[in-house]
């Protein structure tokens, strides 16, 4: 019924057109989200206050937003590097959980000398995160097993492992709650003294810069784009297709694991059942909105950090569920996806 007017794929949509569609989609998504929030009981006048003033324009709010953005940058980058080679990493939360578990093991066990404790947590967390995506990667390369389902299933399994540990050997002996004991000082990122912000921001900044260099200025980035655009052509041209996919997907797992370590070593200082929740959607939304570009990941993650900050405020003052954060993300994502139609296709009359 909709093919009565013929759709034609635009050969090369102009920057202005794609920009306008993107902005239009973003605007509609945010407007619908605002409408839903007002319906849920947030006064319309409070929206600007909570989402802009209290997140960027006050000192407390800004430090809160920056702190919330740190793991979002890492998971956004994790999703972005996998997207570059057309690998759907839907198991980001699982890799994040296991990275956090590895770091917790180091922190609680007091493994290694104290000055090396935090670096060891970071390295081990990244390695374990990469290991958790190695199986779906191998299955995909070897037998073409759909990675959407396999990474997701491993994500669920990882969370059950966390629960097994939290309700078992790691249960806090002091309170009997399913959380670990607090980490000793040597296993935490040092606080900057500005709100909750910790020196993990240096690590996140360095990682982003490194990835920006890797993807935009080295051969690896070129290979990745070739593989992502047309894998058959890349293979025919003799590019190292398997190695590129393997490298970037393992990197994706490692970044997710690193995000897990950043959360527990930076803000939580203990492992609990809630530290990793909601990062899957955030990762995908950040990477998609940032068009899988590291620098834009930084920008989008900051904006999303503000949504997280505002979400916490709304939860306390208007008793809005934190589901709000996921709802806003989903609404904006589908709105931009739909708006893209207008830049990808043109209408032409049937001849």
């Amino acid at each position, binding site marked *: *019924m*909709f*093919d009565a007017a*013929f*759709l*034609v*794929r635009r050969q090369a949509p102009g920057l202005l057109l794609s920009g306008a569609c993107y902005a239009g989609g973003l605007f509609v998504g945010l407007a619908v989200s605002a409408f*839903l929030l007002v319906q*849920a009981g947030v006064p319309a006048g409070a929206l600007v206050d909570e989402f802009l003033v209290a997140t960027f324009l006050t000192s407390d709010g800004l430090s809160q937003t920056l702190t919330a953005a740190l793991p979002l940058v890492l998971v956004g980058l994790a999703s972005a590097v996998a997207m570059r080679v057309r690998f*759907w990493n*839907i198991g980001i939360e699982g890799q994040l959980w296991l990275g956090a578990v590895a770091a917790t093991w180091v922190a609680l066990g007091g493994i290694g000398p104290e000055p090396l404790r935090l670096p060891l947590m970071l390295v081990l967390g990244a390695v374990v995160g990469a290991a958790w995506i190695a199986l779906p990667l191998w*299955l995909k390369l070897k*037998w*073409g*097993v*759909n990675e*959407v*389902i*396999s990474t*997701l*299933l*491993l994500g*669920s*399994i990882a969370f*059950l*492992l966390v*629960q*097994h540990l939290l*309700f*078992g050997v790691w249960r806090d002996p002091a309170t009997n709650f399913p959380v670990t004991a607090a980490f000793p000082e040597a296993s935490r990122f040092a606080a900057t003294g500005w709100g909750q912000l910790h020196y993990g921001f240096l690590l996140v900044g360095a990682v982003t810069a490194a990835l920006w260099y890797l993807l935009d200025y080295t051969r690896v980035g070129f290979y990745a784009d070739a593989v992502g655009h047309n894998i058959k052509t890349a293979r025919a041209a003799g590019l190292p297709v398997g190695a590129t996919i393997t490298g970037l997907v393992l990197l994706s797992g490692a970044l997710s694991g690193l995000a897990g370590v950043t959360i527990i070593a930076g803000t939580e200082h203990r492992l609990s059942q809630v530290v990793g929740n909601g990062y899957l*959607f955030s990762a*995908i*939304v950040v990477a*998609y909105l940032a068009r899988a570009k590291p620098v834009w990941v930084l920008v989008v993650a900051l904006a999303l950090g503000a949504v997280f900050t505002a979400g916490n405020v709304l939860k306390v003052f208007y*008793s*809005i*569920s*934190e*589901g*709000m*954060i*996921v*709802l*806003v*993300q*989903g*609404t904006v*994502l*589908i709105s931009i*996806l*739909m708006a*893209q*139609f207008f830049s*990808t*296709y043109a209408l032409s009359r049937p001849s």
Partner: protein
Amino acid sequence: MDFLIGWLAIIPSYATPLLLASLGLIICERAGVLNLGAEGLMAVGAMTGAIIVLSGGNPWAALGGGAVAAAALALLFGLATVVKRADHTLSGLAIVAIGLGMTGVLGRPYVQKTFPGIETLGDLFGIDRGTVFGRIVAVQDPVTIALPLVVFALWWWLQKTRSGLRLTAVGENPAAADVAGIDIQLTQLAAVLASGVLCGLAGAYLSVATSHVWVEGMVAARGWVAIALVIFARWNPARALLGALLFGAADALVPRLQAIGADFPVYLTMTAPYILTLGVLVLSSLRGKTSGEPGFLGRVYLRQDKH
């Protein structure tokens, strides 16, 4: 023996939501649309069903209401994927986010309130619970009992009727179906709506028939298991029935073991259905071309493209 009877008695109630959802997904994917939104659609169905009963509605009306609400969300998905030709994977994930987020925000006042559910066969027909047969049958409800019929009807429709074959043609080769005069968009939209109805029903069944309560996150990855189940079933409704019973049995094991007070690693045992699914996924990938996957699954059809 007691353990076995108890286990057998609850397997159908665990299998039913999985089966309902996977039947919906089979219809949708047979038409070529990859629907990863099942988890979100089920959440909306579960919440809507609970709200209707808590507001004094009939449990049967609640099942219907859950189906309608999820169909509305599925319509948004159809609009994005079929009309606007957006990426199926990303659109599906967005639907999951919207479904889970919306139920979190809107369902807040209804959390943890118990309500009466659907009457079981035992209540309806006064089945004697003294015998082994009675103990197993009395706890079943009309939905569960009717399901094999639904499965057969769907199989018959897909394999033996003109409209069913048309649906399959659209998913296998939309260009050929288009030339044959089949309306691709209309067929796909109808299939997406059907998946919304059945996933909504599956969700509403969870809250209204099984749990008699609604809590956030109660779908607990069953939507994802249903997606894997479709692969296991090779897009065939009859096999989906078998798969749902198998997965339901694995799912029902933990609460049964807990009920008899067995000492076992609960969370590690709960990984069983996921590991099973992963194994099945690998096996069906090894099968390659005979996996039954619709030829055009998850791809965007444009009349002007060369396919």
